[in-house]
């Protein structure tokens, strides 16, 4: 294929004994977007780095070649690689916070790349830098050149990164999870920008993502990677209509689309890569494994239309099998109209303010209003989702509930008794009643303690079960409940995968027999298939133990899937609260609507992205916090904050001009 821009053939990379990339081949045509889709550890980032020849030192090329415009990149001397990096191939990384140098201005960083690859100097250089910044959608580009990275937001940083990678006029742009670290509304902007620059410049693009929806929105061609190998390749239309590989199908089924179904999780985890595979890599996790799957490595099967798949059983037609209906589907749980019942948890006018700078004599005290007057009710056995972007105060509120963060004003009541400031015994009871599952299971388990000690600690400290033998029995039961083996108790956290760790973290919270579990984005650090496992586990535990859940998330479809009620937060305040299906289907607040429309789904072809970025909580806009970004804002919105009003269907909205459900 001489017309292809990039041709990777039979590439194999090893780190030690592990074959992290094991014989993959693909081609990217000019102007084409190739999406490499896969979970963490599938080798997709290694593939990207290998094209730039920036592999970590422990990794080695074992076989294969990489050709750019027909030129063999692996055969080039290092000095000849430098013009390729940034010149012919540009690269954007996942974490915009760390990929810019904090002590250089944006201008210096862009100019560095420009002068290197385009040999510009002086005034021309300055103008080119400003143009470039302009072209990635940054206003006042000439002024911004003198800013330092800390002065701009995450989304802007990613734009600057894109500008830098475009400085060499690359023919190929590699984007490694470019929007994973960004908020949904900002993600939509960045994806839009990437699409725009690609079209304008006629670049080829290699986009690496774990997000099916991002792939659906961006891709021309999709390649699915699993355990170091490509398992399916197809043009977008074909892939999203009839993915053939069981792994691809499972990925689809793991998406939270139908709220009343158990998510289809993929059992088990990615196999270790240090052994030589004799059969299909996915055989252990596949539902339709036959004898041949274990004995023979599946070869590529061509299905026409450029659709290729590595599977022995491609004959079975594609269909997402509907998951088994939930044992306790929404109708079986008459929780929605429970306001007559006694609330388990009552939050009233909760405020958490942080002092930004110690107040001096003359200086005005500057405060960050992380949570600014939130009122919530949570009923026994109910799931309430707290939805919002980063920095909206949802995590701070969660931490206040578990008494990690004292309230500045307002109060929280558990069973009618205010939290905190009581006798030691009552404090213990209250602590045990509300437990938290943290976002990152890699950070929330002490690496130097065995699982047994981790789980036991809370039981001892809160006096849940003083007797050691009975405690042991309880712990073993608990491990079974969260789907882990008893043997795991004697091991260290690092021996487990992310999903398993999150199960352990859940078990730790459950060990003290709480009634309310605050889950702070418990799945956002996990892969899609594992995310489904955890969500299913939480639902199961909720029905079997009668737990209440406060589910903190930025993922609106997931919130809708899991929760009966939903509260949307923006800059420390709740802007909409009510039945989760109602909000997700017909959002009344413009922000809820924006959140919903910014999330790419498998079928969207255009994203409606908000202008601007979330304002800072340290100086929120006067009037309605959302008015600078709101398409419906009018004069009144700039003056006073709208009061909460109750709509006909019972939900509460803080907006002067709520969207009429009937009109939309």
């Amino acid at each position: 294929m001489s017309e292809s821009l990039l041709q990777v053939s039979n590439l194999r990379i090893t780190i030690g004994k592990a074959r992290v990339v094991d014989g993959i081949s693909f081609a990217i045509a000019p102007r084409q977007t190739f999406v490499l889709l896969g979970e963490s550890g599938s080798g997709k980032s290694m593939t990207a780095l290998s094209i730039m020849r920036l592999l970590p030192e422990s990794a080695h090329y074992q076989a294969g070649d990489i050709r750019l415009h027909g030129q063999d990149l692996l055969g080039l001397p290092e000095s000849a690689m430098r013009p390729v990096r940034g010149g012919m191939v540009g690269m954007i990384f996942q974490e915009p916070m760390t990929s810019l140098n904090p002590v250089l201005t944006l201008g210096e960083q862009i100019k560095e790349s420009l002068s290197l690859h385009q040999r510009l100097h002086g005034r021309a250089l300055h103008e080119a830098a400003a143009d470039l910044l302009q072209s990635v959608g940054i206003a006042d580009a000439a002024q911004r050149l003198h800013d330092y990275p800390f002065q701009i937001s995450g989304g802007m940083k990613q734009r600057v990164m894109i500008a830098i990678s475009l400085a060499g006029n690359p023919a190929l742009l590699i984007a490694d999870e470019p929007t994973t670290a960004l908020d949904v509304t900002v993600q939509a902007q960045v994806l839009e920008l990437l699409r725009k620059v690609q079209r304008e410049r006629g670049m080829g693009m290699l986009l690496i993502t774990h997000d099916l929806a991002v792939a659906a929105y961006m891709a021309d061609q999709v390649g699915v990677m699993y355990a170091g190998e490509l398992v399916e390749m197809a043009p977008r239309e074909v892939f999203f209509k009839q993915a053939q590989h069981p792994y691809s199908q499972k990925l689809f089924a793991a998406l939270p689309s139908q709220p009343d179904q158990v998510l289809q999780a993929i059992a088990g985890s990615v196999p270790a890569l240090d052994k030589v595979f004799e059969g299909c890599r996915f055989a252990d996790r596949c539902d339709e494994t036959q004898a041949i799957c274990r004995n023979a490595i599946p070869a590529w099967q061509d299905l026409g239309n450029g659709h290729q798949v590595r599977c022995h059983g491609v004959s079975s037609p594609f269909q997402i099998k509907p998951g088994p209906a939930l044992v306790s589907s929404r109708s079986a749980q008459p929780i929605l109209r429970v306001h007559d019942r006694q609330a388990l948890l009552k939050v009233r006018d909760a405020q958490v303010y942080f002092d930004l700078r110690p107040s001096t004599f003359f200086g005005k005290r500057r405060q960050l209003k992380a949570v600014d007057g939130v009122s919530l009710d949570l009923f026994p056995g109910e799931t309430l989702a707290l939805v919002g972007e980063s920095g909206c105060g949802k995590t701070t509120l969660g931490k206040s509930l578990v008494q990690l963060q004292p309230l500045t004003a307002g109060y929280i009541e558990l069973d009618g008794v205010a939290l905190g400031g009581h006798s030691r015994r009552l404090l213990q009871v209250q602590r045990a009643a509300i437990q938290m599952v943290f976002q990152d299971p890699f950070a929330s388990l002490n690496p130097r303690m065995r699982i047994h000690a981790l789980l036991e600690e809370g039981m001892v400290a809160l006096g849940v079960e003083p007797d050691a033998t009975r405690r042991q029995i309880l712990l073993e039961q608990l491990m079974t409940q969260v789907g882990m083996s008893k043997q795991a108790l004697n091991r260290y956290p690092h021996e487990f995968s992310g999903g398993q760790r999150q199960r352990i973290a859940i078990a730790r919270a459950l060990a003290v027999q709480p009634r309310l579990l605050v889950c702070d984005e418990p799945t956002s650090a996990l892969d899609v298939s594992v995310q489904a496992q955890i969500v299913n586990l939480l639902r199961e535990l909720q029905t079997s133990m009668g737990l209440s859940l406060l589910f903190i998330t930025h993922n609106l479809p997931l919130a809708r899937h899991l929760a009966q009620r939903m509260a949307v937060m923006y800059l420390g305040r709740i802007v909409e609260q009510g039945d989760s299906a109602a909000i997700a289907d017909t959002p009344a607040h413009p922000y809820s609507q924006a959140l919903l429309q910014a999330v790419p789904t498998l079928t969207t072809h255009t994203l409606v992205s908000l202008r601007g970025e979330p304002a800072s909580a340290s100086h929120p806009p006067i009037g309605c916090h959302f008015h600078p970004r709101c398409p419906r804002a009018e004069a009144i919105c700039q003056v006073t904050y709208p009061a909460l009003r109750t709509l006909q269907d019972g939900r509460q909205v803080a907006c002067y001009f709520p969207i009429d459900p009937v009109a939309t």
Partner: protein
Amino acid sequence: MGWQPVVLWADGLIWLTVGAVGLLFWRGADNIRAGWQSLWRQPVAMAAGLILLCYVGIGLLDSLHFRLRLPAQAGMSVQYSVEVNSVLDVLIARLSAYQEQSYSAPLAKHLFVKMPTTLPDGHLVLGYPELTLYQAQRLGRDEQGAWRHWPEKVRLGLRGVLMGVLLAAAMTLLFAGWQAHRGGVSLRDLLRTAWQGKHQLPWRTGWATLTVLCVLGAMMAEWSTVYHVLGTDKIGQDVLYQSIKGVRTGLMMGTLTTLVTLPLAVGLGIAAGYFGGWVDDAIQYIYTTLNSIPGVLLIVAAVLLMQGFIETHPALFDSAASRADFRLLFLCLILGVTSWTGLCRVLRGETLKLREQDYVSAARTLGVSDWRIMGRHVLPNLLHLILISMVMDFSGFVLAEAVLSYLGVGVDPAMASWGNMINAARLELSREPVVWWPLASAFGWMFVLVLSANLFADSVREAFDPLGQRR
């Protein structure tokens, strides 16, 4: 002949420390034992560890003190000698048995400086007299056999090499036999896997290190029958003897000072980082103040005070050894008090970071008390830092002893120490021809100790890091 044990303060402390560390490793939690076992699987740890063991062995033997009973005299109760000796003194007594008049080079037969000597015929001449040791030992040695044409140095050296090799082989075999017995395999199989490098322990490294150590030891022992192996110093004392005696002083300085700094640095550092607020302010204030006083000045002042105290309270010290011991301890104390700030600052910063970790938050939501969180969640995650800086400090303190002795405010001048040897080298290096061996000897012994301590610590950190075992 009777004897009376003497327990000096420093002896007690060092044996307690050794006991505590031993207990920790042998009876401690199984993860410590597992770490200990995986430690010895690293070749570097094996080599450095064996060398350290030698030093520690010498230091410990030198820390078992006793006094001999004096010959009984009629009408008097039992009297003990004022001189306090150690077990090591007895073992290497031969080295110090012959006192020369002044400098002599390593393995020399004659003095290095000219001395007036009386010839047998009564003439007084200025020359290089024969060393008393050589004179005394050569007499009565009849040189016979096929070896007699070889120079004596070579002969003795070769014998040392042979003995060393045999000794090392014997020790390795003994250990292998014990291992084979314990593991339930035949000695042959064990030796074969060990020789092929397939056993989990680095046998070849261990054996090679042991051979080098034994050969060096045996050669020195052989030579020392006739020669001063590392020469003699200005007043004619054997430099090898001085260097060996210096081991205890170096180890004591390193270990005891570390023992003083650790609780201060760890306790205050974690408390400052974890509690924050006024506790943090107070602790930061203390160490900033302490840091702004020049350390050497503080130490000099404190040592001078102590000297005054010793002179005005002679009744408190019943022997020269206890006086030297007190001086050593005090030096450790003052050195420790002035040097905990660096580690404390590092630990405070790291604790600030760890405090925000989710697992600390999780422990707090579970109602775990602050002290337990500091002990179980913060401290274990600081251990690698503590361990690294402990060893760096240990090496630093061994070197600091040399510097302070050089300034004249170090250990007791009568106490054998590398610092005192280096202090004396000031004049030796400026004379012509240069007397280099006391300095070289002190430097060599110190260098090997510090280097192997650093290498060993590296391996310890790797072995005890649960994350590191993955690699």
